[in-house]
C-alpha cells in the first residue's frame, strides 16, 4: 500500500460516530407520494415539462435544464402528477416541486435493470458528456454542481488526473463508504468513463484510512484496471474538501478563486462516479441515491437506496425514533443544514438524514474570545477567523475581504473548535454574502 497522504494546514478530528458502516445498503421502498424539487443543484431551476394529471414512469424526464449551470430532473417513481407548486424544502425555504402519486413501479423501457456489470465503454467522449447531461447528474457529495460542466474542459485548460472523492469525513455518514464496499467495480468503471471523456489515462480513488473494507474492495478491483489507483488518506476533517483533497493526493494547491481544473485536476464524488456508470452503461438517469439515516435519535441506523423525492419522514418511520428528537440534520453534522420540515424530500445531494436527541443538541453559549488562536490553527485554508469575525462585527466587510474571507470553504473547523463557542463560521458566511451582494 502506498503512503498515507493528507493536507498540510489545519484540520480537526471530530468523533466519527460511523455506527452504520457495517450495515448493508437496503432498498427504502416506495412512499405513497414523492415530492421532486426542480432545483436540486447549484444554478437555475429546471423548466417543468409535465402537467398536472400526466402519467409518468420511473426515469421519465420531468424538467429540462435551463441554461448551462442547471440539470435535468427525472421522475423517480411511476404514477400521476398531482400538483406542481412551491413547497417547503428542509430548511424552510420554498422551491417549485412536482408531487407524484406512486402507482406501481413501471420503469422506462431502455433502462437496464439487470445486475450485470458492463465493463466495455462503447460511448464516445462526446456521447459520454451528452449522456451525463441528459441523465441530470450533479455532484453528489453535497454541493450539487452540475457534472457536465466539470467534464467539459474549458478552452486552454488541460486535465491530467481524475480524482474520485471517497473521503467521507463528515461524522455519522456512511453512504459513500457502503457504496464503495458494495459497488467497487461500478465506481472504478465510472472512473474509466470519466477518463475516456477527458481523454486521459490516470484516475485516483481517494479513501480515508478509517474505511478498511472499502479500501480492500477497491484495491481488489483496481488490480484489473491499469491506471486506476487507490490512495489512502489520513482520517482528518475536512479531508474530503475538494481543495484539500487535491493537495493531499497531488501536492498541488488550488490558488484562491481558482477551480481544480486550474491545477489540471477533475474531482468527482464516488457517488457521482457510480451515477455516471449507471447512466452511461445502464441508461439509468439519476433518480435514486444512497442515504445514511443515522444519529443518536435513531433506533436502527440504515443505509438506504432512496428514490429522489422520498419524504424524510418516510425514512424516519422506517428506522424508528429513539427518544425525544431535538434536531434533524440534512447532510453531515459539520456542514449539513438543520431542517424544520420533516416531510421535506430527499434530493440528489442528500447524503444523510441525522436525528439528534434533545439532550444531545448543543445550544452553544457564546463567551468572549480569549485569543487562543485555535481557529487560526485549525483553518485548512490558512485564514484567521477571529480577525474576520472582528471585522464583520464592525460591519467592515471590505477589510474582511482583504484578509481572504472569500477563500473560506465553510468547513466549520473554526466554529467546531472555538473554546468560546463564537459562531466564527456564521460571521465568515455573512461576510461572503455581504461582499458578493455588493458586486
Amino acid at each position, binding site marked *: 500500500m502506498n503512503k498515507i497522504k493528507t493536507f498540510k*494546514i489545519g484540520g*480537526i478530528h*471530530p468523533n466519527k460516530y460511523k455506527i452504520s458502516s457495517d450495515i448493508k445498503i437496503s432498498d427504502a421502498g416506495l412512499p405513497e407520494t414523492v415530492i421532486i424539487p426542480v432545483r436540486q443543484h447549484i444554478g437555475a431551476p429546471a423548466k417543468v415539462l409535465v402537467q398536472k394529471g400526466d402519467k409518468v414512469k420511473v426515469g421519465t424526464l420531468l424538467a429540462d435544464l435551463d441554461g448551462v449551470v442547471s440539470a435535468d430532473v427525472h421522475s423517480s417513481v411511476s404514477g400521476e402528477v398531482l400538483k406542481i407548486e412551491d413547497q417547503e424544502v428542509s430548511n424552510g425555504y420554498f422551491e417549485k416541486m412536482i408531487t407524484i402519486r406512486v402507482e406501481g413501479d413501471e420503469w422506462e423501457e431502455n433502462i437496464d435493470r439487470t445486475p450485470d456489470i458492463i465493463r466495455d465503454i462503447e460511448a464516445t467522449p462526446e456521447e459520454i458528456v451528452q449522456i451525463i447531461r441528459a441523465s441530470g447528474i450533479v455532484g453528489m457529495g453535497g454541493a450539487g454542481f452540475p457534472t457536465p460542466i466539470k467534464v467539459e474542459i474549458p478552452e486552454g485548460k488541460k486535465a491530467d488526473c481524475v480524482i474520485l472523492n471517497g473521503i467521507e469525513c463528515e*461524522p455519522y455518514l456512511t453512504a459513500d463508504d457502503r457504496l464503495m464496499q458494495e459497488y467497487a467495480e461500478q465506481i472504478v468503471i465510472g472512473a474509466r468513463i470519466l477518463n475516456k471523456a477527458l481523454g486521459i489515462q490516470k484516475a485516483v480513488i481517494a479513501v480515508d484510512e478509517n474505511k478498511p473494507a472499502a479500501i480492500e474492495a477497491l484495491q481488489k478491483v483496481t488490480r484489473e484496471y491499469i491506471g486506476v489507483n487507490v490512495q489512502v488518506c489520513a482520517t482528518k476533517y475536512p479531508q474530503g474538501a475538494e*481543495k484539500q483533497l487535491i*493537495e493531499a493526493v497531488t501536492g498541488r*494547491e*488550488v*490558488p*484562491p478563486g481558482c477551480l481544480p481544473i486550474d491545477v489540471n485536476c477533475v474531482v468527482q464524488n464516488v457517488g457521482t462516479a457510480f451515477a455516471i456508470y449507471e447512466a452511461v452503461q445502464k441508461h439509468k438517469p439519476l433518480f435514486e441515491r444512497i442515504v445514511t439515516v443515522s444519529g443518536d435519535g435513531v433506533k436502527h441506523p440504515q443505509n438506504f437506496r432512496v428514490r429522489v423525492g422520498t419524504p424524510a419522514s418516510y425514512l424516519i418511520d422506517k428506522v424508528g425514533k429513539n427518544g425525544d*428528537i*431535538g*434536531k*434533524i*440534520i440534512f447532510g453531515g*453534522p*459539520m*456542514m*449539513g443544514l*438543520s*431542517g*424544520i420540515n*420533516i416531510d421535506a424530500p430527499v434530493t440528489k445531494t442528500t447524503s444523510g438524514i441525522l436525528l*439528534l436527541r*434533545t439532550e444531545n*443538541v*448543543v*445550544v452553544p453559549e457564546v*463567551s*468572549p*474570545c*480569549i*485569543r*487562543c*488562536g*485555535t481557529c*487560526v*490553527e485549525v*483553518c*485548512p*485554508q*490558512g*485564514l*484567521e477567523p*477571529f*480577525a474576520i469575525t472582528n471585522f464583520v462585527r464592525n460591519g467592515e466587510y471590505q477589510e474582511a475581504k482583504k*484578509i*481572504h474571507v472569500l*477563500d473560506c470553504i*465553510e468547513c*466549520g473547523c473554526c*466554529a*467546531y*473548535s472555538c*473554546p*468560546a*463557542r463564537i459562531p466564527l*463560521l*456564521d460571521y465568515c*458566511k455573512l461576510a461572503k454574502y455581504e461582499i458578493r451582494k455588493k458586486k
Partner: protein
Amino acid sequence: MLKVSTAPHIYSQTNTRTIMRDVIIALAPAGLVAIILFGLNALVTIATAVTGCVFFEYATCRYWLKTRPSTSDLSAVVTGILLAYNLPCNMPIWMILIGCFVAIIIAKAAFGGIGKNVFNPALAGRVFLFISFPVQMTTWINPNWKDFLNVDVTTSATTLGILKHAEPETSFFELADKLPSYTDMFVGNIGGSMGEISALALLLGLFWMLYRKVISWHIPFYYIGTFALLNTIFWFVAGKATCEPLTQLLSGGLFLGAFFMATDYTTSPMSKNGKIVFAIGCGVLTFVIRQYGSYPEGVSFAILIMNAFVPLIDKAFHPRIFGTGRK
C-alpha cells in the same frame, strides 16, 4: 420541538473553562513544591491571591462591566495562582490583595475583561508590587521542608542576586562556589518566588499543557532557546563574573515565565510566526535585563514589554493562505 441552527452541529469538548482547568492542573506541581518547602505561608499566599482575584473579578463583572460574572471560566483562579507564584512566601496579606486589585481591575477589567487585556494581569500585579514594595518583594526565605509553620525563617540572596552583586573580577570558579547546586536548583531547594523555584515541577506542568494541547511548543522553545544561546555567547566572551548558561536557565522566573506567562493566550500573538518573533523578543529582553539592567531578574519586564508589541506583531504576521506563495 426541533431546534434549528447553522452548521456545525457538533462541537469539540474544549471550552474556556476546560482550558483554564488544564492550566491549573499544570500549575499544581509547582504549588505543591512551594507548600512543602515554604510551609503554611505559601498556602496562605496562594489562597489569598486566588480569593482576591476571584472576588475582584466577580465584583467588576457584576457592578462595573455589568456582564454575567465570568468567574466560572476559572481565568481569575489562574491569574491568582500565577500572581502568588510570583511573590515571596512571606508577603503581608494586604499587599497581596493590592496585587490582586492591580491584576484584575487595572490590567484586566479596565481593558474590557477576559480576552481584551494588553498586559498579562498576574505580571502587571507582580511588577506593581515589585516597584511599590521593593523590600518585601525581595526578601527571600530559605526553603525548609521541616518547618511547616515557619517558626524559624532565614533569608538569603537568590542565585540571580548573587550574580548581580558579584565583584567584576570574580572568576568563574569562585562564583560557582557561592551558587546553589544544580540538583537544588532543579528540584527547587533554593530561595526565590514561590512558584519559580522548582524547574522539575514547572517542566511537569509544561508537559501536561503540551499533552493537552493547551499551548504549542513554540513560545517556550524559542524563548528559552534564544535566552540560552545569548547566554552561551556571553559566557564565552565575558568570562568573568558570570555563570554558565545552565545556571541562568534554572534560576529566577525563566521557566515560570516562559511556560505559563509568555504563553498566555490573550497577551501573545495568534499566528505561529508571530509567536516565534514574540518569544525571541522575550528571550533577548530577558538576557539584556539580567546582564545589563539594574534588576537581577528580567523575565516579568521582558514579557510585559513584548505584550505591548503583540498587536503590531499580529498585524505583521499572518498564516499562509492556502494556494498562495508556497515555499
